[in-house]
């Protein structure tokens, strides 16, 4: 661990400990490089009266590459980063375009797409293929997932976790296998999305780029975001949506330093998309159609209801995943079972098969479905997607959400139409409002959803209607269910991003990284006077009592020992003086928990014991180290989020 190596030895830091606040000259003397001390002063001012300023003196624990550099070198470094972003974007865009084309090709070849099903004139064989293709595809997917350590495909949630905890470094092998299994899933007609795999593929590529060039964490996060932006820009042919998605969902902050490389990646993706992937716009609207003012109230209401549909969709996916564990089927066979079930259902309702582009299109046409049909297809599509994703198919949640949302919007539109005089030319507004109301909460990205509508339709009227709908949808779903499906999944895996990135970061850092044995340990039988002498020699105020078998038996402070000696009739050895009131930590305890524990404690350090037996003494973590680690993390975040270049 870099940060551990860079930490000064406690001895070294103790020499700085004398309580006088450090002057600025001292800061220069100790702080080394000029720019570091500037940051430190800025940091120190609000915290001034305490001893903290002295602790921050040795703050240049960050690798040099993360320190902002100004002037010509800084400019060159920044431009290189933009160039790297464009490069990552280009490769990600080509991969994304190839992925999309490969899915389309597979759908044609495997009799999933309606066109190929129509052209295949053997009803019996078609029936067999409808069941066999998703089932066999599921089998292949199940086998592929055995090559991934977690036994499950990696998704955008893993990307978010990597960036939010600043661990970066998405594994290339798991990323490649996930993309491959997603390709098989989508190609074989599973009801899953294609954008999630594309986002993860782009992110893996970005991470790989930084790793090859041996760049730092911040660069890693930026190139991951570049890959993500390029994938979205290519797949939707919507560069603005790509840029905003990378910020809104992956980075979750806005930094000028990150913006330029991400924008470069998105532009490259857009250019490649418009050359390679010629696709029709998602929606067409008549120029004349403008909704009535009162219809905006309906769009708001669709937003509120859409949040519930989004919640049902997310709950269904998570619920099936939970139930899957109780099935008498191994994880390898589960996708095959889901595929067979999907195929059988698709014999009656072929609309649920695959990505569902045709279903999406029909849902935007007034009169293509009756209200009853819409309800059935809506429910079945939710069930099919939950089944496929829950039982281990690899794929995204966005494309099915698009279909589900549009069906839901169409349902609202046709109900309104049945109630009163609704002109058919605003029907598409309802479909789009429903679409945004469901997709925005699922991926936790209201702005991206709006921009996708705007960039795909070029219609301002439609975008404003979607805005009305998302206004209620996103906050209601966030209150009831969580910021996004990704966040809910991560919370279930132990990463809570609801309180922001700073806390997640501290929760993700174990105190083991700051463990030291440079403390005074005493045997329980040590006499009090000897113990005081030892502490005086070592210039520590506390000692930890460890018995002959290495078990932690409590801690004593110099003050306790002094009091015992003054009382005369007190116990003669430290074993009797030691208290075990002080909380103990395990090496895996997070920095966040350690800070919470410290609120109850006044003292130098917290003892760390082995997690398995709960008593073997491993060492201590100094309070000062915890505070310093906190400041280092905050500072790194601040640089990343507020640094300009």
């Amino acid at each position, binding site marked *: 661990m870099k940060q551990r190596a860079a930490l000064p030895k406690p001895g070294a830091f103790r020499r700085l400990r004398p309580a006088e606040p450090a002057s600025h000259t001292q800061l220069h003397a100790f702080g080394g490089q000029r720019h570091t001390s500037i940051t430190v002063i800025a940091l120190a001012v609000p915290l001034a009266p305490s001893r903290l300023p002295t602790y921050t003196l040795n703050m240049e624990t960050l690798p040099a590459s993360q320190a902002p550099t100004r002037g010509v070198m800084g400019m060159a470094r920044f431009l290189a980063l933009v160039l790297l972003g464009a490069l990552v974007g280009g490769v990600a865009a080509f991969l994304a375009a190839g992925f999309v084309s490969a899915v389309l090709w597979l759908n044609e070849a495997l009799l999933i797409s309606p066109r190929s099903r129509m*052209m295949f004139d053997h009803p019996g064989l078609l029936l067999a293929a409808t069941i066999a293709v998703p089932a066999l595809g599921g089998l292949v997917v199940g086998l592929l997932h055995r090559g991934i350590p977690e036994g499950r495909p990696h998704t955008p949630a893993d990307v978010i976790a990597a960036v939010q905890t600043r661990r970066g470094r998405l594994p290339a092998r798991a990323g490649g296998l996930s993309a491959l299994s997603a390709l098989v899933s989508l190609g074989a007609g599973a009801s899953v999305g294609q954008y999630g795999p594309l986002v993860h593929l782009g992110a893996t590529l970005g991470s790989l780029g930084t790793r090859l060039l041996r760049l730092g964490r911040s660069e890693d996060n930026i190139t991951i975001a570049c890959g993500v932006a390029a994938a979205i820009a290519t797949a939707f042919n919507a560069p603005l949506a790509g840029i905003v998605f990378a910020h809104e969902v992956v980075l979750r902050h806005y930094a000028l330093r990150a913006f330029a490389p991400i924008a470069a990646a998105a532009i490259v993706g857009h250019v490649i998309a418009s050359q390679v992937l010629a696709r029709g*716009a998602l929606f067409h609207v008549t120029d004349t159609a403008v909704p009535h003012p009162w219809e905006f109230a309906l769009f708001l209401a669709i937003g509120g209801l859409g949040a519930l549909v989004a919640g049902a969709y997310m709950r269904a996916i998570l619920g099936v995943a939970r139930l899957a564990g109780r099935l008498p089927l191994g994880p390898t066979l589960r996708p095959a079972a889901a595929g067979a079930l999907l195929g059988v259902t698709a014999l009656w309702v072929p609309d649920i098969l695959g990505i569902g582009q045709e279903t999406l299109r029909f849902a935007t046409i007034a009169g*293509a479905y009756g209200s009853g049909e819409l309800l059935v297809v809506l429910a079945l599509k939710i069930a099919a997607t939950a089944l496929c994703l829950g039982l281990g198919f690899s794929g995204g949640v966005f494309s099915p959400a698009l279909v589900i949302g549009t069906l839901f919007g169409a349902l609202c539109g046709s109900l309104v139409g049945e109630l009163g005089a609704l002109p058919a030319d605003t029907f598409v507004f309802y479909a789009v409002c429903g679409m945004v109301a469901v997709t925005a909460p699922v991926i936790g990205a209201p702005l991206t959803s709006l921009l996708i509508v705007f960039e795909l339709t070029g219609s301002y009227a439609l975008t404003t209607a979607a805005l009305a709908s998302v206004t209620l949808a996103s906050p209601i779903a966030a209150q009831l269910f969580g910021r996004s499906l990704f966040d809910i999944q991560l919370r279930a895996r132990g990463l809570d991003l609801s309180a922001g990135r700073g806390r997640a970061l501290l929760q993700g850092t174990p105190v083991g990284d700051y463990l030291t044995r440079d403390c005074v340990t005493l045997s329980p039988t040590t006499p009090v006077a000897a113990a005081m002498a030892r502490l005086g020699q070592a210039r520590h105020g506390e000692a930890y009592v460890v018995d002959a078998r290495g078990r932690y038996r409590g801690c004593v402070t110099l003050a306790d020992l002094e009091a015992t000696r003054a009382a005369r009739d007190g116990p003669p050895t430290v074993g009797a003086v030691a208290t075990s009131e002080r909380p103990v930590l395990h090496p895996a305890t997070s920095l966040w928990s350690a800070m919470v524990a410290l609120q109850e404690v006044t003292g130098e350090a917290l003892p760390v014991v082995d997690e398995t037996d709960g008593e073997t003494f491993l060492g201590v973590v100094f309070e000062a180290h915890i505070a310093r680690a906190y400041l280092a993390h905050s500072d790194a975040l601040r640089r990343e989020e507020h640094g300009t270049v």
Partner: protein
Amino acid sequence: MAPSSRHRGVAGALLLGLTLGLAAPGAGQETAPTLTVLSWGGAYERAQREAWFEPFTAATGIPVEAARYDGGLGALRRAVASGEVPWDVIDMTRTEAMAACEEGLLEPLSPALLAPAPDGTPPRQDFLPDSFGRCAITHTLFATVVAYRRDAFPGQRPTSIADLFDQRRFPGPRALQRTPAVNLEWALLSYRVPHEELYRLLSTRRGLALALARLDSLDEIRWWEGGEEPPEMLIAGEVVMASGYNGRFFDAMINRDAPIEILWDGQVQEHETWVIPRGSRHPEAARDFIRFTTTTERLAELARRIPYGPARRSATRQVTTHPETGLDMRLHIPTHPLNAERAIVKDEAWYARTLGRIRDYFRDWLAARPEP
């Protein structure tokens, strides 16, 4: 009239004839081989004779004899089976050429035999996409379009194919071809679906039902079968809008002064190709003929006489005026960029596999439709 271009044309033809003569010495030794070209007759054949057959004979000394057919592969099948194939080159729609090629009725035809454009652009870049099949080379494109009476809708005119189904703004009876093809595409397009998705959507029961529902919404449809009928119905005022072949509508506008206008939105283009039947007696001369007629200059000359779009981009740019009326022909050919902007690319592979079922479906619908 453009005399300079005419002179250039003759000079070019002579030059080409010389090179062909040098390149194929065997051609002169045969006892005056006559090249038999099977084509569609009528105004089309007349234009072909002027623009292609006569200059070819002038350049090579090989006389060209035209035979006439109305499409279909039956005669070709019988001829190939008997071993007596009376034709050397056939003018065939691409759909039929694809089918005939699969049946082994045609000689393979390599695009390598084609001449480059005058500026040196190789044929692969000069010809429109999908012009080369295994046995067929596209020479021209014709279109099925909607035409309307200029005087039927005072103050406004149809601008989009959806207007064909908009009886509120454009009232009056319509004439449509008694086939599912083209009608289904237009009907679905009127729901404003993107062109790229047409055949994907028509592949679903829902898509077909939507298309037929749109056709059903028209109060009065007059169904036509022969290509000459729709201009007649328009001229007689029996209908206000009609689908039909762009060449026929043009002919009615020029030669009969019909008050009609073509709506290019949603035009469905089809390729006319050259093919050499298996067992042709003069395959070498046939290849020379194909090379000669598909040069930029010859294609442009044909398009001056009948408004069928040249398969070459370079030829489209060189199309000038109608030789007799002096009318600017560029505005009347389907491949002109202004006209082709929103053309439908017919999915011929889709039709090749589904036509039977689609036709049955369409016939059932027709039978269930109450007669007006």
